[in-house]
C-alpha cells in the first residue's frame, strides 16, 4: 500500500509538472494560434467541402516530412 501511495504521488507530481509546463508554454505564445489553418476549418463551409479534413494545401499539417524540400507539403503523420 505504501509503495502504491508513493507511486500515486510520483504520478500526480509528474502530471502536475507537465500541466504547469504546458501552461507556461501556452502563455508564451499569442492567441489564438491553432496550427490548423483557419482557412481549412472555415473554407469548407464556403466551398461546400467537408469541414473534416485539412484540405489539399496541408502545409501546416503534421502528416508529412517537413524535410529539406521547401515546397513539400507537410503534416504530422510521418513526423
Amino acid at each position, binding site marked *: 500500500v505504501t509503495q502504491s501511495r508513493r507511486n500515486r504521488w510520483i504520478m500526480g507530481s509528474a502530471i502536475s509538472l507537465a500541466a504547469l509546463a504546458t501552461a507556461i*508554454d501556452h502563455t508564451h*505564445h499569442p492567441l489564438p494560434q491553432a*496550427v490548423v489553418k483557419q482557412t481549412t476549418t472555415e473554407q469548407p463551409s464556403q466551398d461546400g467541402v*467537408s469541414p473534416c479534413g485539412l484540405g489539399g494545401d496541408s502545409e501546416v499539417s503534421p502528416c508529412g516530412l517537413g524535410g529539406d524540400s521547401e515546397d513539400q507539403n507537410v503534416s504530422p503523420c*510521418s513526423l
Partner: protein
Amino acid sequence: MNAVAPPLTSDKPVAVVTLLGVFALSLFLQHAFNLHQAMVFLLGVGLGISLLHASFGFSGGWRQFLRNRHSAAIRAHLWLFGLTSLLFFPVLGHVFTGVHSVAALAPVGISVLVGAFLFGIGMQLGGGCGSGTLYTVGGGHVRMLITLAFFIVGATLGSAHLHWWLALPNLGDVSLIARWGWVQALLLQLGVLLVLYFIVRSLERRRYGSLVPLTAKTPNLSFTDRLLFGPWPLAWGILALALFNLLTLLIAGHPWTITFAFGLWGAKIWTALGGAASSLPYWSHGYPAQALNSSVLADATSLMDFGVILGAVLAAALAGSFAPESKFKPYDVLTAILGGLLLGYGARLAFGCNIGALLAGISSGSLHGWLWLVAGFSGAWVGVRLRILFKLDPPLGVAQ
C-alpha cells in the same frame, strides 16, 4: 447462467479529478482555439481508455510471440491493420468527395529501415511502444515515466540528425493506392494480412494445439460494467481503436500519430533552457517550425497524446488499477533509459512509431509502413534477446 462478478473497487478521487480535468481542458480548447482542437483532444481520451481497458500493446504481444508463440496480440494487430485499411482506403482513395484527409506517406529508405529496427529493440528494452508508453504512463507505471522522458530525449536527438539520414538513399514515397487504385491495393493488402494471420495462427496452434480467442473475457462481468471498468477483450479493443482511428482521419484530417509531439516537447524544453532548436533544419520550416513557435496546445499530436494519457488515467482509476505496486529489478532504470532513447531516435528516423508509421502507414497504403513492420519486428527479435542479457526475462524456454 454464469454469475456476474462485481467490478474492482474504482479509485474514485482519481477518476473524478481526471474527469474534471478532461472536461475543463476540452472547454478551454474550445474557447481558446476552436471545437476542432477540443474534439482532437477527446479522440485521444477515447484512444487512451480503449488502449488501457483492452491492454492493447505491441511490445508485450510481440515478445509473447517471439518467446512463446502466443499469437493473440499479433492476431489482434493484424485485425486492426485490416479493419483500418478497410475504413481508410476508400477515404484516401477519394471515394467520398468533400472529405479531404491526407495519408501517412513517407520515403521508403534506409532511415525507415534503421529507425524501425532501433525502435523494435527500444520497445523491448523500454517496455512499451509509442502507444504503450503513453497508456502505461497513464496507468501510473512509474518505470514508464523514465522511458517516456528518454523517449522525448531520443526523439529530440533524432530530429537534430534527421536531415543527415534523409540524405541517404531512398525510393521516395510509395503509395499503393496511387499506384493501383484503392480497390486493388486494398485487396492486395488484405490478402497479405490474411497470409500473415494464418502463419502466426498456425504457429501457435502447432505448439499448443489450440488458440486463445480474441473474444476471451475474464472475469465474468455485465456488459456495462465491462465497458466502464474493463478489462475488455482484445476484440473490443480492435473495434474501438479502428473507430477512433477513422474519426481521427476524418476530424484531424490525418491518421493518428504520436511521436512528433515528443520531439516537439523536447525541442521546446531545449529552447526554454537556452538552446537554439529553431536553427536546426528540421525545426526551421514547415509544420515543425510552426509548431515550435506556437502553443503546444495548438499541435494536434500533442493534444492527442495528452488525451491518451488522461484517458488511460481515467480508465485505470475506474478499473482500480491506477499506480500499481512495482518492483524494480537491478537493470530496470538502465534499460528504461536505453529503451527510451532508442524508441525516440528510432521513431524520428522511421517517420513515426508503431502508430504513426506502422498502423498509419499500412492503413494509408504506404510501403514504408510495411518496411517498418519487417524492420521493427527484426529489432524486437534482438530486443527480446537483450532482455535476457539484462536479466529482465528468463532464458528462452523457461516460463516467465
